[in-house]
């Protein structure tokens, strides 16, 4: 019953979409019925054109996200934990850097990195870096100082202090940032692929738009939304497993 309650609105929406389009209240040219969209997803899977796009987009998004996490999270933790009192030195440069829109540099990134995978991965990584870095910083900087003091009072060593107190206290914030940046990653990737790529879901959207195959465009959009849901769910699950803490259960769709 709970399941039904949760997804009833989605079902109604899809039924409405199907019905309005079937009975030509909405122009089926622009709004092909949902069944046609599903059909075209199945069709593209069968002839093998959809999976390579999904694979490519997932690869780019996850690689960019991974790079951003590997660079951003430790950097944020170190800046927030170890160098908190020095943060006025780096605050302004980081704020400015975070405002540099990767699309500004799209032409230049291509000049530097050439065509191919690296510009798109760089765009995703750059976008994901900032939420990760800032949330890791805040997580490390706002650890309750009395927790650290009591840890010290019990004679914890530095590494124990990091493992037992600092990390568990900072982890929820870090994971919030990670989820946000995962949302950003798909969001930016689709735009980047629409700007200039020869593969990936964004490219599929663009090509379907240009060929006016709107059922394929909707198919790609549905697949993107579905991927976003799955990735966010996975990260949420992973976060719960890893840090044994109840994260905020609300999905925070940054739109991505």
């Amino acid at each position, binding site marked *: 019953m709970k399941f039904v309650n*949760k*997804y009833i*609105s*989605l079902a109604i929406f899809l039924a409405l979409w199907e019905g309005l389009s079937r009975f030509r209240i909405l*122009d089926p040219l622009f*709004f092909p019925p949902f069944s046609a969209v599903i059909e075209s997803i199945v069709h593209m899977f069968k002839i093998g054109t959809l999976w390579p796009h999904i694979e490519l987009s997932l690869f780019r998004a996850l690689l960019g996200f991974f790079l951003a996490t590997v660079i951003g999270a430790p950097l944020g933790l170190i800046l927030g*934990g*170890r160098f*908190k*009192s020095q*943060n*006025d*030195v780096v*605050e*302004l440069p980081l*704020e400015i850097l975070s405002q*540099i*829109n990767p*699309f*500004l*540099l799209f*032409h*230049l990134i291509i000049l530097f990195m050439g065509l191919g995978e690296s510009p798109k991965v760089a765009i995703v990584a750059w976008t994901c870096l*900032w939420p990760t870095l*800032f949330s890791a910083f*805040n*997580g490390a*900087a*706002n650890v309750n*100082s009395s927790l*650290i*003091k009591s840890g*010290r009072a019990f004679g914890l060593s*530095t590494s124990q202090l*990091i493992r037992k107190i600092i990390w568990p206290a900072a982890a929820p*914030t870090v994971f919030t*940032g990670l989820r946000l940046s995962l949302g950003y990653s798909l*969001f*930016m990737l*689709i*735009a980047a692929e*629409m*700007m200039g790529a020869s593969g990936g879901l*964004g490219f599929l959207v663009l090509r379907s*738009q240009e060929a006016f195959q*709107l059922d394929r*465009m909707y198919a790609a*959009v549905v697949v*993107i*939304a579905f991927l*976003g*849901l799955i990735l966010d769910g996975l990260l949420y699950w992973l976060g719960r497993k890893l840090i044994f803490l109840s994260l*905020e259960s*609300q*999905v*925070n*769709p*940054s*739109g*991505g």
Partner: protein
Amino acid sequence: MANSDPANRDDVAMKAAETLYPAAIPALSPDKASAPGDRVFSGGNVKAIIRRYGLLALFLGFWELSGQAHWVDQTIVPSLSTSIKAIVEMWRNIHLGLHIMISLTRVVLGLLIGLTVAVPLAFLLGRLLPKVAVRVNALLQVFGLINPYCLFPVFVVFFGLGEAPKIAVLAWVSLWPIFFNGQSAFRSVDPQLLKTARSLNCGSLTAFWRVCLPAAIPAIFNGIRVGVEMSFFILIAAEMTGATAGLGWIIHNSGASYQTDRIYGAGICVVVLGVLINRFLVVIRRGLLSWSEALAPTWLQFSDTAPKPVKKSVAYAWCLIFILIMALGLIQIFRAENLLIDSTLTPEYRIWYK
């Protein structure tokens, strides 16, 4: 500070803690732990200014020097002065100011539309109709995950060509973060406060205005922050592919004609605009919400443990200035529409456009 007897185990431990997390232990290191924000903003303190702007100045100096000394190819990385010259040149020749205003107007209009839809909707679903919220949230989450940039043709079908579909895309982008942040904040308003309000004979409207809204505004602000950030991203991308004005258009056009100095010039404008909007939001937030807790992690700003409050009058003054700029800009845009088309389009394109 305590004595520095190395035999004292606690003291050694404290020292280690101090070096590891100096700011987290204010009692141990009063000199280091004084909130960095205090030092930064106490004007006239030369050292603080150097600390704050030193790295930036160093970077800008290095950039300029690398251009002057020809360390890098000038056609790929023009020096700072060349980029600034390009800004001046664009201001004179292709009405850069108007393009900036157009981009800004699009973002602000999108944000306003997003706000006017999101806040009432969030209140409705978070506060008044929680049972409905349980049923529709799955749908709304899927909507939030849909990338509006993909659906541009659909928006064109609904809103026609011109400004409307772009603004609709931006409104869509900023709508969802505000809505979801607002909804969870409205849902978790402290019931004690509401009960108190009711016992003080507050009507439901007053309770909304005086209790619910103030409780939700910090979260709504966080949503606005994320929304503005994403709007800017998507705006530049949208202007690059389908627009004839705006900063994204300038960048795309310059990129296509290999005028790298113009790319950098327009890029500087975008970054400065982003930083200014960020600052504007911080000032407003601290002026109006000085009582609320530290900034949320999604806020792309290092949170001070004790945010420095801004005077309310200052915040209002900034709001007024912003509204004034927007109004003047809008007047300019309407007056200059033809001028802009003439100056930015190539002749053959202009004929097509007309």
